[in-house]
């Protein structure tokens, strides 16, 4: 009898969490996907009508802008953060004395809320009193930096703020990766007479592939979810020029009373994330079982 309880106790204890996850994650995802195929507006309806919400979605200019913004944002955000992070990591790995302090400084932005970051950068990029004025006061009276209120350029302000917040984290990842590079391979290469640039580009950076993948996964994930930062910095404006799928979804769900559209946009966001995450999780978990 005792053995029976012992056998089942772990399963019993983990069951509530598992049930919660099943309900609140997978159940809810199912609900959202379901509703995305209904005619729901202010209130959810549950009769399936096919993919008309998706048709409508892809015909909505505001959504298309949001998707385009997301694409541009992901690309720039990930690329710049990777480059900056890797560059700083390599620099910081050169036996610098103040490394601890410098590392702490590069990383602290991650401890801030995106709202705080957005607020700060909104002020810095303020057309009248921010950077524009600073540079003008330095003697360049015609310097223009009104990106924040320029529909064409506002998106890039979000890139700037986002990179500022996240590149330190990428640096930390790469630094940890650099420190675990196999020393003996480097020594062998040096004995072979290979110069430092080739050692970096030919040996060290390729061996950081897992770190690249982790960093990209995290960054893409952050980018797709970027809601807080956009709201704080531009509120999706001017107009809709910095709208993202996340802000679009929120607007449809809570201000416009378009639950069907909201669910459809949320589902698209989910699919995008899945494309990246599922293969990664699968390979990670399989490795762990070996």
């Amino acid at each position: 009898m005792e053995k029976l309880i012992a056998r089942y106790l772990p399963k019993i204890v983990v069951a509530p969490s598992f049930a919660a996850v099943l309900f609140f994650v997978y159940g809810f995802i199912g609900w959202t996907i379901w509703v995305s195929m209904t005619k729901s507006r202010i209130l959810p309806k549950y009769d399936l009508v096919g993919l008309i919400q998706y048709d409508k979605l892809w015909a909505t200019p505001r959504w298309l802008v949001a998707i385009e913004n997301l694409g541009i944002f992901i690309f720039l955000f990930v690329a710049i953060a990777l480059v900056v992070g890797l560059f700083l990591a390599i620099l910081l790995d050169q036996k610098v004395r103040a490394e601890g302090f410098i590392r702490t400084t590069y990383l602290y932005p991650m401890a801030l809320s995106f709202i705080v970051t957005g607020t700060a950068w909104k002020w810095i990029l303020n057309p009248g009193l921010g950077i524009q004025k600073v540079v003008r006061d330095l003697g360049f009276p015609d310097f223009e930096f009104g990106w924040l209120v320029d529909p064409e350029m506002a998106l890039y302000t979000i890139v700037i703020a986002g990179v500022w917040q996240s590149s330190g984290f990428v640096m930390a990842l790469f630094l940890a990766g650099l420190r675990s590079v196999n020393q003996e391979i480097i020594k062998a290469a040096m004995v072979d007479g290979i110069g430092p640039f080739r050692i970096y580009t030919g040996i060290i950076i390729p061996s950081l592939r897992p770190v690249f993948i982790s960093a990209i996964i995290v960054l893409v994930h952050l980018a797709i979810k970027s809601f807080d930062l956009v709201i704080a910095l531009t509120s999706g404006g001017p107009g809709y020029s910095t709208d993202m799928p996340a802000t679009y979804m929120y607007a449809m769900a809570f201000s416009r009373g378009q639950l069907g559209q909201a669910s459809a946009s949320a589902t698209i966001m989910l699919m995008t994330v899945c494309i990246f995450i599922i293969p990664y999780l699968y390979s990670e978990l399989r490795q762990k079982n070996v």
Partner: protein
Amino acid sequence: MSDQTANVARAGGKRWSPILLRGLLFLILGLFVLYYTLPLFVMVVTSLKSLPEIRQGALLGLPKEIVLDAWSNAWSEACAGVTCVGLKPYFWNSVVLVVPAVIISTAIGAINGYILSMWQFKGSNIIFGLMLFGCFIPFQAVLLPMAITLGKIGIAGNVAGLVLVHVVYGIGFTTLFFRNYYVSVPIELVKAAKIDGAGFWTIFGSIILPMSAPVIVVTVIWQFTSIWNDFLFGVSFSQGDNQPITVALNNIVNSTTGVKEYNVDMASAMIAAIPTLLVYIVAGKYFIRGLAAGSVKG
């Protein structure tokens, strides 16, 4: 282990003078230190200036005269929409939210991690995988049904609802942290304890928990930071007086009524930022460990 890259750089030092290279290195590193600290500096400095001084420009200049009014204003008088009570009540809302949410999600994560690493059974890895996946989903996909569910249970719009939300969606991460930590504990420890006669809970309480200090710290810091800094759940599932500080901050900064008080905005942002910044400064290296554990999954 920074030796080898330093050696690499030295190996190529023949063309460039090593002192020049070193100087360049420090210059670049220094520039980036400026880059990262500038916004914080600007926030603090602006929050200590008077409005007239701000309007004169000089974003980067130190305040001619330190004025603390913006801070007291931000704390007790600032207007978020119609109500003008400052950040104080919302600060405490966040505290009341964060403390139970962190404690509960950490405790659950510890027990789950313990089970999934030391009491594995058929399908336990699938359960882990499913829980793990839950960490990665964009929360937009669950926002609507959660709003409806909270309404049905009757805790929509108040702290209890937010605590539930943060606990449920935090379990994935906390379980991950603890499981990864416990997986490196030799299983023979559990075998020895079983032979000694200890059961499931005794092993957890007497043996595993006492050796969990590092992972508990990392998890608590991670959870505290992400729940305090959260905005999406806050803005979706709370109303009016119950909102957490991030929502109130956004309301203050983006409110369109009246004159734009930049110094109050900055002071408000600082007030919202100080708790997590303090935690970071005091326990930063654990925070970094938590970040690495959460994403690199080593």
